[in-house]
């Protein structure tokens, strides 16, 4: 493919994204070592990594789409499908489970009317299970967006999601940890 085509594809990324990615590359021995950083940068800007973003990143790093997607799909925190405004990372590991986490996750699911791997109809939340959040002394715990919520109870969940709509149509997104 000619340079011109190359550049136009890379241009699908914003200047800010490109300069953040280049900043990562600057302290790495080669461009492709920045693969995960680059995916995360673009995801931070766009919420997720679409096929076209992925292909632009691949060009920027001098690797193929297959190579980059092989990496992207390995990691559970790279979203290759659209997610809601906030991703709920619900800890389903052992201490939270002991502390009644399963009941609470059921409660969230019914309240938001989604299963693991799905996004609410109003696009506010995507629910994903996550490995131990390192907050076991305050189990059960979860992240909503960037915020950690812990010592969860039925009440705290009610108040956290008091604004939840009760539309019933869901939007499954798949995702690496959404096998439940």
């Amino acid at each position: 493919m000619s340079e011109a085509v190359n550049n136009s594809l890379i241009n699908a990324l914003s200047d800010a994204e490109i300069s953040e990615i280049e900043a990562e590359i600057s302290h790495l021995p080669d461009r492709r070592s920045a693969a995960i950083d680059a995916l995360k940068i673009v995801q931070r800007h766009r919420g997720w990594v679409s096929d076209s973003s992925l292909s632009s990143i691949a060009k920027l790093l001098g690797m193929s789409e297959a190579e980059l997607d092989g990496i992207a799909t390995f990691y559970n925190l790279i979203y290759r499908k659209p997610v809601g405004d906030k991703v709920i990372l619900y800890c389903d590991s052992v201490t939270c489970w002991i502390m009644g986490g399963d009941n609470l996750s059921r409660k969230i699911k019914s309240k938001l009317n989604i299963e693991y791997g799905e996004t609410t109809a109003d696009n506010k939340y995507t629910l994903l299970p996550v490995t131990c959040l390192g907050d076991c002394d305050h189990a059960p715990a979860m992240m909503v967006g960037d915020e950690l919520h812990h010592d969860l109870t039925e009440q705290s969940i009610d108040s956290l999601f008091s604004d939840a709509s009760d539309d019933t149509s869901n939007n499954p997104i798949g995702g690496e940890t959404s096998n439940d």
Partner: protein
Amino acid sequence: MPTIKVDGQDLEVKAGVNLLEALLSAGIDLPYFCWHPAMGSVGACRQCAVVQYANDEDTRGRIVMGCMTPVTEGAMFSVQTENAVMFRDSVIENLMLNHPHDCPVCEEGGECHLQDMTVMVGHSSRRYEGKKTTFNNQYLGPFIGHEMNRCITCYRCVRYYQDYSGGHDLSAFASRDRVFFGRSDDGVLENEFAGNLVEVCPTGVFTDKTLSKHYTRKWDLQSAPTVCTGCALGCNTYTSERYGQIRRVHNRYHHEVNGYFLCDRGRFGAGYVSSNRRIPQSGIRNAGGLYDPVNLEAAISKITEMISSSAKIVGIGSPRASLEANHALRDLVGSENYCNGMTDTDRELHGIILDALSSDLVTPTLADIEDYDAILVLGEDVTNHAPRLALSIRQATRNRSAEMADATQIALWHDAAVRELAQHDRSSLIVATPVEDRLDEVASQVLRLKPSDISQLGFDIAESLSNSSLSDSNSSETSAETASIVTALTNAKRPLIVSGTSLQNANIMKAAVNVALALKTNNPETGLFLCASECNSVGVAILDNQGSLTGLLASEPDMVVLLENDLAPRLGQGFESQVSKIANLVVIDHLDNASTSASHIVLPAATFAEAEGTYVNNEGRAQRSMAVYKPKGDIQASYHLMDAIQLGAKGVINDGASTELRSSTEIRHDLVNQHPVLRGIIDAAPEADFRIEGSKSSRMTHRASGRTAMLANISVHEPKQPVDSESAMAFTMEGVQQQTPASLRAYTWSPGWNSNQSIHKFQSEIGGSDTGGDTGVILIAPNESLTPYTIGQIDRGTLVAKLHIFGSDELSANSEELSQLIPRPYIRLSSLNANALGVSNGDGVSCQTQGGELQMAVIVDDNLPVDCMVYPRIPATAQLNGIESIELSKITEWVSDLNPLSPKLITTDRTS
């Protein structure tokens, strides 16, 4: 040679190998999946587990992976102990959890390594009751099928594809029990060695679509050891047939030539044998210009007539025909009227190759090439001209990592560790060519030059190396580029110069020879590898490199006998005018082409698959290719047709057995008597009377249920099996199968090892030579010392014919699947030239030649030397061949073709 103890027995093993290799080399069966003899170990499948004991007192030991365990003096192992046996059984049981029960409909069935290993560990009953993981399959192009549900996640495919062959469009995706091997999207696998996936995959995930479309089990195939006719490297293949059709081509291991891998032209290019352009019988052109089909007898008698009325008869041989066929033609017309069918330029170029082969310069084998630590590719389009060589060169660039691994005491078979250590560090590879190539990415230096600059560069390097002026053009100062190449080559332990005929430029090849000569004065390890043009170019050049094609055509012959050769691409725009002058043109060939269409009589020639023949590769290695099956009807080996012409009426063949005709063996002996230099071809394979305990070597497996069942729907009476009077091989399943010498072995199989992995049973050691000796005979003893060439006239031609792995070889281009991947006519222009013409990418241009108008899509290439123009050497552009420059004009009404290199696929081939 360390001695280890295995189940109480002392075993002397080769130092530096891993335990799995050592055991397999010693004939001890240990199951495995992820290890591959050419790709080393990663320890993924855990199938090759054994128990290792710390010392005599240690009775428990611990499980280790054979493939990840070095053999050290005194190390103690058990393969048989219950713990090890149970562990290996568990591996299979767990691999089988998700493996479908589709063996009966799976193409791998009967030659499946997974089946073999399952039987070997004895796992036979299922305890798992859950659901199986399922995946979507992808469309991977016309060659390769994808059935992901069968995957056992051994990672061989992605290691082969990415790490070994340098492909980028196949990856491992996702993780845990969802790992998926495929592309990011449906599409043709881009790598020209993708076909090896079919053999690398230990089960039926990657399958050969050209086989699937008319599938036959391995045990029902009739096969023969053949030599690939796709290029001059002479890779060894097994070609397999059923019902008179080629079903597939598989790799035939040759320690020194192709090893375990083929290119996709070789693997998928044999379909032309049953193409609809195949000439099934003789034809005589009638007054209306059409061909009347006639029987052989009528055709021969017509030719006899022609001969008697012709004063001058010329025979044009062929670098793609066997030595036997060329010799028979030369016998027919006399040496003064014979030429070997190459263009005059090509003949000159092969003269240089012969000089080099007979000189004391080392011509390495493909296997040797992997050991060179600095390689200069001078003007040779390796990937498209001698594809398998590109794979060897790619491995050679890893010598740097081998050095690093040695220094760090990492065993070379510890594949992932060596790669992690070396990262992107590679040995020197300098590529000087006009057009980008896949090897560029592993090159330390890439120079995009036009042909005349490439030869200049070569002479400069040689000059700088030897400090003696050989070039008549005065390049006063050494450029920085030249200097860095000189440094890389002089610093190397083993430098190699690769060049060849792909740019059809004698100066480039002479320069390459000079570089090698200059290096050799200080470094006897220096190698030179010159790529020849076609599968038997070197052979026919040795046979007779005197006669000139244009000279003979200009001598105004009354009659021309043209053997397996289409003159259209050779003569380029002059084709029509030169051929139309010939009063009597007899063409003997396989496929309908421009020359057969211009002929007066055509005779149907057997292909490599139907007639035995000897071919000489780049290294000067004579190799015999055996017939796979008897051709149908009047189709005959060219050498028999030639003899038949000579004999006239007497020579008409009845079932190939006319007693008047010489057998191929007799022809070979006659040939050798006339050309003692070719003596070695006799020994390229055992002669026809060779027997093993009274038996011939069979072409079918001993469990071929097919032979008796094949025609049972028509008649239960089995027809008489065809007799092979030409060779020491027998059609059908009668005869010896395993003890045969490699050159007569029709397939690899060993009890318990039904897949191609059984090859190790025929190797002296893993990855070593055949237990019966490697096949082929090097014909030319290198001895003469060569004086450097002086540079010839620098040609300023700027029109470059670019070779394409799919399309530039006229025969394979007619294979159904492969033909889909031939690029469309294009012209590659520098932006300077494109701007001058007012065209950009995807536009159309046309040019006028004597052969008519030619339309091409534009590719603008900023890296192209500015005044170069590059077109693909494919059948559709034959009229441009040999032209030095062309005038282009923009086509205004043109449907944009943005990427003429990417195939427009037959959509029905795609599964939705």
